[in-house]
C-alpha cells in the first residue's frame, strides 16, 4: 500500500501573471512528481500541490528563489490518511 509519510500539500496564491507562469512551470518538472490537487488558474486563486517528501526541498527552494509565498496546507499527508482510516475502522466496528 502506497503511503505518504512526509508528503506536504502546499497552498500558493499567485500574486501576478509572472508568478502564475512560474507556478505553471512546476507542472513540467516531472522529477518532482508533484500532484496538483487544485490547478493553476488565475491570479489570486489558490493552487494546492501535493509535494512528495523527496521533492520538498527542491520545490521550496524554487518557490523561495522566485519570491513566491506559500503556506503548508497539510503538514504530513499520511497523518491525515491514518486518521481517516481510523475513523472508517471505528465506524465499521
Amino acid at each position: 500500500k502506497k503511503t505518504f509519510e512526509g508528503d506536504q500539500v502546499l497552498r500558493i496564491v499567485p500574486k501576478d501573471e509572472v508568478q502564475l507562469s512560474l507556478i505553471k512551470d512546476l507542472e513540467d518538472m516531472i522529477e518532482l512528481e508533484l500532484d496538483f490537487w487544485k490547478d493553476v488558474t488565475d491570479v489570486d486563486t489558490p493552487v494546492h500541490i501535493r509535494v512528495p517528501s523527496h521533492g520538498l526541498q527542491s520545490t521550496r527552494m524554487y518557490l523561495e528563489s522566485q519570491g513566491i509565498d506559500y503556506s503548508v496546507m497539510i503538514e504530513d499527508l499520511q497523518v491525515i490518511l491514518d486518521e481517516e482510516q481510523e475513523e472508517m475502522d471505528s465506524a465499521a466496528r
Partner: protein
Amino acid sequence: APRNTDNFDYSRYHTIEEIYSFQDMLVAENLGMVSKIVIGSSYQGRPLNVLKFSTGGSNRPAIWIDTGIHSREWVTQASGTWFAKKIVSSYGRDPALTAILDKMDIFLEIVTNPDGFYYTHNSNRMWRKTRKPNPGSSCVGVDPNRNWDAGFGGPGASNSPCSETFRGPRAHSESEVKSIVDFVKQHGNIKAFVSIHAYSQMLLYPYGYTRTPVQDQNELHALAKRAITDLASLYGTRYRYGSIINTIYQASGGTIDWTYNQGIKYSFTFELRDTGRYGFILPANQIIPTAQETWLALMAIMDHTLKNPY
C-alpha cells in the same frame, strides 16, 4: 452491515462493496421506482451500475447524474449515495422532485470509476485515473475526464501515460467512458447531464476544449447562477461558475463537452465543497452538509430542465 438503507450511515465513507450493497438494498426497498442497470464493466471487470429512478412510462426524457469519475474524490461517491436515498424519500413529499419524477427519469451512477475507487481504498488513496495498463509504459490508467470525443487530444490533456491528465490512446478507449457513451446514445432522450467532481467549489458548463461559447451560453450561465445561489442558501458555501475554459483552464476531451455536442443542452459539471484545509481528505463530517447543499443546486438544474423542454 446495515439491513436497510434507513440504517446506512451516510455520514461516513464506504468501500465499493458497501456501496454496491447499498444500491441493491435501495432497489429491493423501492421495486416500483428504482432499478439497477449494468451499463458495462470496468477494465478489471467490476459492474458499472446505474440506478434508474422512474415512475413509469417508456423512454421518458431523463436526467443523468454521475459521481466519482475521479476515484480519490470520495465526497462525490458519498454524496451520490445520499442523493439516491434523497430521491426515493422525497418523491411524494417534495412537490418539485415529485413533479420531475412524474415526467422524467433520473439515472445515477454513483461509482463511475470503480477500479480506481477500489484502488484508493486498498493501494493508493490519491489515485485519480482508471486502472488499465498502458502498453509500453510502467504507468497505469487514463484520466477518464480527458477521454471523451470532444476536442480529444487537444490542449489541456496530456499524452504521457504517467501524467494525471493522460487522455488515453484514443477517444472512448476506457470502458468506464465508452459504457456511458453507448448508454447516452442508445437512450437518446437525456435532457440534462451532471457530472460531479470534487473539490474547488465551482459549477461549470461547456466548453473546456475551445473558447467558442456554446450556443446556449446565456441560459446556462443564468441557470448556473441560480443553482449556486440555491446551494449557498443552506450554509453560505460560495461557488464560482461559468464555462470550463473561462473559469478554470483549457481542458480537452471532457465529459460535458461531449454530452453538449450530443445535444444535451443542460450539461454541467460540479466541483464540490473545499474546506481549504483537507482537499481530497475531506473529513467525513462534511459529507452530509456537502450533499445537502449540492442537492439544492441539482434541484435547480432538474427543475429548470423539467420546465424548459426542448
